[in-house]
C-alpha cells in the first residue's frame, strides 16, 4: 500500500486544514461573545480616547522611537566602524559597549538613566527632559544591536569595491563613505527595519520615566484608560495604533527593497 509522495503530501495538508478549522470553531463556540463585545469593543470607550490617542500618545511613541532610532543608528555606525578598526582599543571599547547594552534589559537602561544618574551624580539629570532620556536610552540599546548588523553589512560588501575605489585615488575613509556604506545599508535594510520595529515597542518603557498628559505614549495611555474604565477596549485601540505604525513601515521597506533589487 505505498502512497506516492505527492498524494501523501496532499492528505497531510488536508489534515492540517481540518485541525486548524476545528480549533477556530472550538474557540468561537467557547467564547462569550456578549461580554467580548462589551469589554473589548465598546464604541463609547474607544471614541472617548480620541483625539488624544492619536494627537498625543501615537505622536509621542513616534517621536521617542524616531529620535532613539536616529541616535542609535548614528552611534551604531560609529561602533561598527570601531569594531572593524585596526586600532585594538577601539575594537575593545566597541565590543564591550555592544556586549553590555545587548545583554542588559532595556528596562535596566531606562532605570539607570532616570534613577541611577541623578543618584550617582547629585544634581545632574540627563538633559532634554523625557524626550532626552528616552532618546538616550532607546539609542544606547538600539545602537548595540544595530552596530552588529551594520558591521555585518559592511563586511558583506565585496572587497573589490574598496579596491576599485582606492585604485581611483580615494582615501580609505572616502571609499568607506561613498562606496561601501551605501551598499552595506542596502544589504541590511530588512534587519534594520526589524530593529526599528523592536524599538517602537521598546518605546513603551518610557513610562518608567514618569509621564504627564503631554508626554504619555501609547502603552501608558492605554493602560491608564484600562484602569479607569475596567474595560479592554483601550488595549485593542492602542494595539491597532502600533500596527498603524509597523505595517505601513513594512510595506515601505518592501518597496525600497524591490527598487534596490532592480538596481542590482
Amino acid at each position, binding site marked *: 500500500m505505498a502512497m506516492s509522495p505527492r498524494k501523501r503530501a496532499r492528505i497531510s495538508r488536508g489534515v492540517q486544514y481540518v485541525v486548524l478549522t476545528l480549533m477556530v470553531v472550538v474557540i468561537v463556540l467557547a467564547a462569550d461573545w456578549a461580554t467580548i463585545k462589551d469589554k473589548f469593543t465598546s464604541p463609547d470607550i474607544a471614541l472617548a480616547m480620541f483625539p488624544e490617542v492619536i494627537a498625543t500618545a501615537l505622536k509621542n511613541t513616534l517621536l521617542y522611537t524616531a529620535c532613539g532610532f536616529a541616535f542609535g543608528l548614528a552611534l551604531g555606525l560609529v561602533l561598527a566602524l570601531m569594531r572593524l578598526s585596526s586600532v585594538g582599543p577601539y575594537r575593545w571599547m566597541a565590543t564591550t559597549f555592544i556586549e553590555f547594552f545587548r545583554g542588559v534589559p532595556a528596562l535596566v537602561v531606562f532605570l539607570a538613566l532616570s534613577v541611577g544618574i541623578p543618584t550617582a551624580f547629585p544634581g545632574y539629570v540627563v538633559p532634554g527632559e523625557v524626550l532626552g532620556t528616552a532618546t538616550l536610552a532607546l539609542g544606547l540599546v538600539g545602537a548595540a544591536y544595530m552596530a552588529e548588523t551594520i558591521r555585518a553589512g559592511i563586511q558583506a560588501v*565585496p572587497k573589490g569595491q574598496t579596491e*576599485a*575605489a582606492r585604485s*581611483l*585615488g580615494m582615501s580609505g575613509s572616502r571609499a568607506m563613505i561613498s562606496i561601501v556604506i551605501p*551598499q552595506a545599508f542596502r544589504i541590511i535594510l530588512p534587519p534594520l527595519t526589524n530593529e526599528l520595529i523592536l524599538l517602537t515597542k521598546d518605546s513603551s518603557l518610557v513610562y518608567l520615566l514618569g509621564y504627564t498628559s503631554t508626554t504619555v505614549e501609547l502603552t501608558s495611555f492605554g493602560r491608564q484608560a484600562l484602569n479607569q474604565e475596567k474595560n479592554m477596549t483601550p488595549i485593542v485601540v492602542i494595539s491597532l495604533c502600533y500596527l498603524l505604525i509597523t505595517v505601513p513601515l513594512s510595506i515601505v521597506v518592501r518597496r525600497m527593497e524591490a527598487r534596490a533589487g532592480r538596481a542590482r
Partner: protein
Amino acid sequence: MTTSQRQTRTDAAIDVIELHKYFGDNEVLKGIDFHVDNGQVVCVIGPSGSGKSTLLRCVNLLEQPTSGRIFIEGDEITDPDVDVDAIRSRIGMVFQQFNLFPHLTVLRNLTIAQQRVKKRNKEEAVEVARRNLAKVGLSEKESAYPAHLSGGQQQRAAIARALSMDPDMMMFDEPTSALDPELVGDVLGVMKDLASEGMTMMVVTHEMGFAREVGDKLVFMDGGVIVEEGNPREVLGNPQHERTRSFLSKVL
C-alpha cells in the same frame, strides 16, 4: 644578491626593484626586477599562481610588498611617507571582475572619483565622463545601472571610469578572463585603441594574440620570478627557456 641595489630609472613609468611578496610563509614574488617605459605596452603572461596578478597589484599597492621598492614616474610609492592616494590616482586600474559600483549609474561611476578626488565640478566631470563613454562605445548607457549591462559593457565602462581620472598609465588585471568569448573582442578593441593613442599599459593577460599584436614587451613569469622577457614576437615565436616553451605549448 640584494647587497648591490641598482639605480632607479627615473624616466620609466613603472620601475620595480627587488620586489618580494609573502602571503604568510608562501613566497609569491621572489625578487622581481622589472620596468615599463613611458608609452610602452607590457604584457605579463604565465601560469596561474605564477604571481603575475600579485605583481600588478603590488605596483599600485593594493598588495603591500614584503620588501623591495616601486617607483611610479620617479616617485616611490613604497616610501612610507608618500601620499599613496595621489600616486594611485595617476594609475588607472581595470579588474578581472570589473568592480563597477553597483549602487551608482554608469555616469555616476565615472564622475564620483573625479569629483571627490580630483575636485572637479559636476559639469566638468560629466563632460569628461561622456567623452570617455563615447570612446568605449557606451554613450547610450550612461543612466543604466551596472547590473543591466553585459560583462563586456561592464568592463568597457570600468575602463572608461579609470580613463576619466586622466591617468598617466593603465593597468589591466586579466581584463577579459571573466567574459563570455564573444564579448572579449569588444574589450580588446578598446584596449588596442588606447595603446595606439600611446597610453602606457601593463596588462596581465591570457590573450596571446593581443600580446603579440599590441605589446611592445612580453614578460613570462613562473613560480614568482620573471623567467623571460623581450619582444613579444621573439618570446612567443622562439622561447629561450624550457618553462616558457612548455607553457606556450599548452596555451597556443
